[in-house]
């Protein structure tokens, strides 16, 4: 995959994503309460917090799976009230899921090709007839998918049904599928959950490479604080659905509220 295809994102530009006063509850149970933060274009932003802090819910709001009762999400300068996952995908938001959501019966390559869904131009009629243009286009998508497989070092599993791969590799395939959409904003829900140290190192490197080579803005949820502090430009901490800290990793690490949320407070 050539870096030239993806111009590096302008640094310190206006925020690519701004979450403004989001509140979300499920039948009276509050998942997140009045959360605001901004993600600058080109940065890696981590959402951290204890289990049940509302991190995944927030990610689901950003990509339109859930609709918040209050607040709005401003993406690329446009505030949308009614985001749907498809609309989010069209505007360049790709994501992975906490419990790997892959097409398990399909091969690795087909999974990644499915990620190019929105880039398919030829109509189905031309595809049925197998016209030259449609075939060339299909070849292009296949090449692109192969490049992504190579980038994430999973070419060897190209034709393996995803369900047969070990968990760590499935996580990587899911990342590949998200990348196939050539997103501007990548939402990763616990990309390193359940991984051993080596796999975590690999995944961290991939995320950093994606961010640097393609200028993709990344918002990720992660529990391993070591990893978070290493790779993030910006950390947002949630606890019981509220934001308790927001800033550079070093600032957040020394914040007494964060320490209290993680280790329990003395008072």
């Amino acid at each position, binding site marked *: 995959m050539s870096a030239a295809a993806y111009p590096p994102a302008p640094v310190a530009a206006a925020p690519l994503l701004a979450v403004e006063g989001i509140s979300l509850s499920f039948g009276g149970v509050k998942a997140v309460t009045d959360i605001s933060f901004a993600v600058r274009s080109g940065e890696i932003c981590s959402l951290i917090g204890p289990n049940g802090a509302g991190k995944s819910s927030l990610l689901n709001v950003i*990509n339109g*799976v859930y609709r918040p009762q209050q607040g709005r999400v401003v993406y690329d300068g446009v505030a949308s009230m009614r985001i*749907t*996952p*498809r609309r989010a*995908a*069209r505007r360049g938001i*790709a*994501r992975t*899921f906490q419990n790997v*959501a*892959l*097409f*398990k*019966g*399909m091969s690795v390559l*087909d999974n990644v*090709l*499915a*990620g190019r*869904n*929105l880039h*398919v131009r030829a109509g*189905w009629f031309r*595809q*049925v007839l*197998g016209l030259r243009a449609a075939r060339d286009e299909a070849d292009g998508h296949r090449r692109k998918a192969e490049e992504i497989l190579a980038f994430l070092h999973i070419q060897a599993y190209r034709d393996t*049904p995803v*369900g*047969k791969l070990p968990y760590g590799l499935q996580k990587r395939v899911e990342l590949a*599928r998200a990348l196939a*959409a050539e997103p501007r904003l990548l939402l990763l829900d616990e990309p390193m959950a359940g991984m051993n140290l080596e796999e975590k190192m690999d995944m961290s490197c991939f995320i950093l490479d994606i961010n640097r080579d393609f200028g993709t803005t990344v918002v990720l949820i992660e529990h391993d604080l070591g990893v978070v502090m290493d790779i993030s430009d910006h950390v947002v901490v949630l606890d019981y659905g509220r934001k308790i800290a927001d800033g550079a990793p070093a600032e957040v690490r020394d914040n007494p509220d964060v320490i209290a949320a993680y280790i329990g407070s003395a008072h």
Partner: protein
Amino acid sequence: MDFFLEVLIGGLLAGVMYSMVAIGFVLIFKASGVFNFAQGSMVLFAALTFVSLLERGFAFWSAFAATLASMLVLAWAIERGVLRHLVNRPPITLFMATLGVSFIIEGLAQLLWGAQVHGLELGIKDEPLEFGGVLLSSFDLFAAGTAAALVLALSLLFSRTRIGLSLRAVADDPLAALSVGIRLQRIWGVVWAVAGFVSLVAGLLWGARLGVQFSLSLVVLKALPVLIIGGFSSIGGAIVGGLIVGASEKLAEVYVGPLIGDGLENWFPYVLALLFLLVRPAGLFGERAIERV
């Protein structure tokens, strides 16, 4: 030898018609994991609507168009009104829902068009034609040709286009499919519309063969062994399964029937399907479930 060929080819021709019905099931099963029990009553509804319109003086093509439109509305209503609300429910819930829908459709058909048996004349002659000493029915040839063309068109649609890939993606994980920008509603709509269209063609061909009556919805049950043999999730499997069922039931009827009694062709496919279930539960072409333990 000629007689053997005649039986075999006759069986294969009937088999193509089974394949066509089976494809209606496969499409919906692939896209939403539902075994659509209502497929049979959709076939009946289509045939009954068509024949009733003909009897009320509609011309062939206008009756065809009107029936097609009503099938699309019906399919849309089932998808939108029933199944969409049951997304992510266990398969048995969905199955029971389609079972309920099938009774509603049959009742509706009866309410609209009455319960009497209608003859359906498509204007295709049913006379024996001879090919190299083998006698074949011209109607069977026509029906098989139509079914084959439909089957071919559908398999092209689902193997060459992104609809095919999207279809498999939707069946595998609807949420993930949404996140890569696949329009679930669109895919389900397409699938149900196609299933409605397939029911129409099947209803006309089977109706012309057997008469339009309520047992028509049972003929469709023959698709069950076809699917077990071919695999529930494969269009190719439905084709091959249909041919196997068609050919084997006719051959069994002719060659084994005299030994153990007639009526063999009614139950032989089910026995064959049972054997397949024991030996190859996913069918010839079905995706075997992959489970990591």
